């Protein structure tokens, strides 16, 4: 069997991440229509507007809310969280891959991208 390369791993991460998040978002949309009894989008609906200061704390909030008491807002938020995590995980996978092949130059370069993204997800 052919060796699994960075290209394969990244390709799968992108497809699986996006497909899962879109499935969850579709389920969330169905819940929204069932819950509201209407298809109107209320742009001033505060429940639908996340305002996370710390994205990682938000992930935990959203996940526990979906597991405990799922409603349209938490399910759709989970879908979006997964969507945002997809490229983020792609960077983590690249760091691991370059470290495995001891290409330290690229470990540093990918870590810089990782650090900037992480900072921007936490600090506001």
């Amino acid at each position, binding site marked *: 069997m052919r060796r699994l390369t960075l290209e394969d791993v990244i390709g799968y991460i992108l497809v699986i991440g996006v497909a899962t998040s879109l499935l969850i978002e579709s389920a969330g949309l169905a819940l929204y229509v069932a819950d509201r009894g209407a298809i*109107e989008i209320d742009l001033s609906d505060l429940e639908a507007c996340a305002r996370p200061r710390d994205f990682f704390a938000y992930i935990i909030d959203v996940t526990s809310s979906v597991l405990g008491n799922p409603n349209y807002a938490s399910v*759709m938020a989970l879908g979006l969280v997964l969507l945002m995590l997809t490229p983020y995980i792609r960077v983590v996978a690249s760091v691991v891959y370059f470290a495995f092949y001891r290409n330290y130059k690229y470990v540093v370069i990918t870590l810089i991208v990782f650090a900037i993204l992480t900072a921007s997800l936490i600090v506001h």
Partner: protein
Amino acid sequence: MDVVTIVLTSAFAGFLGSLIGLGGGAIVIPILSILGVPLKQAIANSMITLIATSSGSASAYVRERLTNIKAAMYLEIFTVIGAIVGATITLLVPSKYLYFFFAAFLSSSFYGIGRKMLTSTPRDGIRQDKLSRWLELEGAYYDESLDKEVSYKIARAYLGGPAMMIAGLAAGMLGIGAGAFKVAIHELILKMPPKVSSATSNFIIGMTALAGSTVFIASGLVNVVLAGSIAVGATIGSLAGSRLLPKMSDKTIRMLFLAVLIYLILQMVYKGVTSS
């Protein structure tokens, strides 16, 4: 404005976008603003969905080895910073100016047309500078139309990085991928072959979209129902578009591209002039 309208509109935008090679964001944002979504909200909610619309083709290109991952990682340092700064600027400036920025930036997409006339094989004899060589910016891919392996070298990384920061800035400000602008930098400055340039730009768009989204989601502009509806619609639309693409003639695509682009530019200028 309701869920069905947003899903269908985004599907149409995604479909058209993937047919004419203009990112879904550039089409869906003006349409959302015509439907009455405030511009900043349209920008913030459509930026997240770019991760979804760009990832399908990004995944395919990566597995076909068309994407230069090392070049992408290096350039992402710059686009990610640019996108975060750009999204922050958007939160601060009045919407009126953003309409004009949008119209002006859409004009960079005209590069997409001129580009078709360029050669499709990499030029030989590219001399790499020290930084590009140190970054190991080279690669090879199998070219189906030529039926052979094409190897290439990338040059002028020292200029390409800062230029990509400007691309990231514009993307973050306007909630779009800025694909045409990125492709122009890849080809004109970095000397990437066209196929590698499209694939690598597509790959970077997902990361730029994430960077801008980190700012928008914390600002409270992202409405999960609106963003979810756009994401579901736009992704289905762009998948359908990529199926139809091989069946359309280049001339039809080019005419459609021009018509859509000019219409969107005029719409945004009109919105900018009439907004208070």
